[in-house]
């Protein structure tokens, strides 16, 4: 791993379009400012990893697991919110 020393208000460039600036240092906490193109997602690592794990778990859900989910909807208070996807075609899970 490349290790660089920086002071407050100093920056690091990654490639030619990502700039990370040390905004503040207080005790063991560092605040970073990140300038990156919109198409490059920036995440806190632990949050990103938790979402990865959750997506992988969710991607193994079977249609039979979701039976009864309709009964859990708060129909009375839904403000007439439409059902989720104005989707393509109905599919009949086998």
């Amino acid at each position, binding site marked *: 791993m490349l290790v660089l020393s920086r002071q407050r208000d100093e920056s690091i460039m990654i490639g030619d379009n990502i700039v990370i600036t040390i905004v503040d240092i207080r005790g063991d906490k560092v605040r970073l400012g990140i300038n990156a193109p*919109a*198409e490059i*997602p*920036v*995440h806190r690592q632990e*949050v*990103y990893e*938790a*979402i*990865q*794990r*959750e*997506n*992988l*778990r*969710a*991607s193994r*859900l*079977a*249609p*039979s*697991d*979701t*039976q*009864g*989910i*309709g*009964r*859990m*909807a*708060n*129909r009375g*208070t*839904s*403000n007439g*919110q*439409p*059902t*989720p*996807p*104005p*989707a*393509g*075609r*109905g*599919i*009949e*899970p*086998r």
Partner: protein
Amino acid sequence: MRITTTRFGRIDVDGSDIITFHSGLPGLEGCREWALLADSSNDALGWLQCTTRGDVALAVVSPRRFVPDYSVRIPRSELTPLAIDDLHQAQVVVVVGRTGKKLTLNLKAPIVINLEARTGRQVVASGDLPLQFVLCSEQPPLKKSA
């Protein structure tokens, strides 16, 4: 386009029904093209089926139907790639998961879809929101099939 899926068998998907996630989804980075399907046996539920991997699908719901006070704040930078300025121009769904026998909703990372452009992105919402919001059921537990 005909795709073979592990859950739904063979299904035909119109090219115009395909939603492109340019960054994939966290954990499913290789899955960029998805079809949004309605579940004919359950009108509260939809499925995002990956068109290139038949075994990958995510159950999705409209969060407000389940969590009426769910208000999601998403940094504007997360919406820019979708070419939308605010969420009113988009369809927001959340992914259904399961913890033990309980169904959960990922309220922290909703999926935002620009229906016109057919592009989507899973975003990280601001604030302290659960990745596994447990859905309460007043119903008795589901019958186990033998």
